């Protein structure tokens, strides 16, 4: 008997849970659609808000795309610094090999490759632009060279890099040390700064977007004051009143994010030929990377979240003032 009533009660609870879920879905569906209708009824307002959101979001977005592209250029150097160590005099192959072995023992050094002056001259002779000039020389003007590669982690650590350079330069055989990749270290450090600035910019713009959405929602609320008051007189909960405005914020934010991604793609298309031309002057086949699907999604999600946040702030502050009805 108890089991039977228990089962009945369970079934009733289940049914009411289904009914609740259905009415929840219905309420949200209706609010989502009514928000869309409301936005469509004011095409000028909606379009300008979405455009402002899109332009604001496109700014940091372009920054991240540029940073990502720079990062991929820097990444090509497999993140190790190289030092060109020029050896004076004519030490001979054995002494040169010993010197290279010694350098490999320095902490932070990953490898040392010898480039004999004969080999360097032969390579130069093969180059058309120098080939004609070289026979004019009496003797090989090039020094022997050891190319020292550091461990990857040393690239951006200028102190350790300097320590390695000093140890190499202290050898009497060494006539000069040139840090080939010092600019990468500087670039990486610069990018770290730019990235921080971008984060700050993104936060600032995010707040701005939320405020813009909040403002348009406030206007919408003012325009629908009567409807809110009447709905509340007939038993509308605050949730019911809030919902369409939250959806309006969400839709505008999502649309703004999507449009921002489109703006960025257009910017990439416009800039791409110039970047390719610049890269080719460095002998690079670098191609500008467009926003990835994840970045598209990110822009839309961030836009939506900011729209929702702006609407939520505006609606909740309004409803607090609205608890007393006229």
């Amino acid at each position, binding site marked *: 008997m108890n089991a039977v009533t228990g089962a009945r009660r369970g079934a009733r609870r289940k049914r009411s849970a289904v009914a609740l879920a259905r009415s929840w879905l219905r309420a949200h569906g209706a609010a989502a659609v009514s928000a869309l209708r409301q936005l469509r009824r004011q095409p000028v307002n909606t379009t300008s808000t979405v455009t402002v959101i899109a332009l604001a979001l496109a700014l940091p977005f372009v920054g991240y795309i540029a940073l990502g592209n720079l990062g991929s250029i820097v990444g090509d150097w497999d993140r190790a610094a190289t030092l060109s160590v020029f050896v004076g005099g004519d030490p001979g192959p054995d002494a040169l090999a010993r010197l290279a072995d010694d350098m490999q023992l320095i902490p932070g050094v990953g490898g040392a490759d010898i480039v004999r002056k004969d080999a360097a001259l032969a390579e130069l002779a093969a180059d058309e632009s120098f080939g004609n000039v070289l026979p004019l020389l009496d003797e090989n003007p090039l020094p022997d060279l050891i190319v020292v590669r550091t461990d990857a982690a040393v690239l951006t650590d200028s102190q350790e890099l300097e320590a390695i350079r000093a140890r190499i330069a202290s050898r009497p055989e060494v006539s000069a040390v040139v840090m080939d990749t010092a600019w990468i270290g500087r670039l990486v450090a610069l990018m770290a700064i730019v990235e921080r600035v971008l984060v700050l910019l993104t936060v600032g713009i995010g707040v701005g977007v939320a405020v813009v959405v909040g403002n348009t929602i406030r206007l919408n609320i003012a325009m629908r004051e009567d409807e809110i008051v009447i709905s509340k007189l007939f*038993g*509308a909960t605050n949730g019911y009143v809030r919902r369409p405005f939250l959806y309006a914020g969400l839709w505008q934010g999502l649309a703004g994010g999507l449009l921002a991604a489109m703006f960025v793609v257009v910017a990439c298309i416009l800039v791409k030929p110039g970047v390719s031309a610049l890269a080719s002057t460095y002998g690079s086949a670098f191609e500008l990377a467009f926003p990835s699907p994840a970045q598209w999604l990110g822009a839309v999600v961030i836009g939506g979240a900011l729209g929702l946040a702006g609407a939520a702030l505006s609606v909740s502050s309004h409803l607090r003032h609205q608890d007393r009805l006229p």
Partner: protein
Amino acid sequence: MILFDAVSKRYDGDQDALRDVSMEVAAGEFVFLTGHSGAGKSTILRLIALIEHPSRGQIVVDGRNTARISARELPYYRRQIGMIFQDHRLLPDRTVFDNVALPLVVAGHSPLEISKRVRAALDKVGLLSKERRLPPALSSGEQQRVGIARAVVNRPKLLLADEPTGNLDPALSREILRLFGQFHQVGVTVVIATHDIGLINQVPARTIALRDGNVVRDTHATLEALP
């Protein structure tokens, strides 16, 4: 159904709108509140609907002390009350159907249920053929009937009407009054605030007269005494 116990209401910086009013309206009763404008009729309705809170005294509606109804519970409390206003308070950009459907939509009923009940309510007030119209396209009397349909569509226990015939000619007023009578007959408690003496004289109902925030006459006893 409604109990006022020594209720006073004073608006900020103003004189008292209600002074120490005590009265009781039983479930299923039909009551007129009368008096000049400013006598406190509307204030009583607003206090019952919890649009206002009393400055002093207690109000009990359907066994609940209204002071103990939280902001969260308020919407559910209001769903038991149907309200009718002199200025109709319809949404001009929504169809008659959507206006009447509002209390059901707000309460989360299914579309099928809403459509059934709205049509029934519109049929009752004789406006079924105008469900697709917008309120501004209707006459004042028709708009008031839409307001009545909206007030009763959720089958409330209590119907509050503030000057429901204020702008209507006598024939239309009688028509509106007949509708209220029908709801009263199916057990709804009806409270009508009006200064329309002609209206009151048509129905031998209890009349509570107010002046300057005081109850000056209550025909309750007289009616009971009638053979």
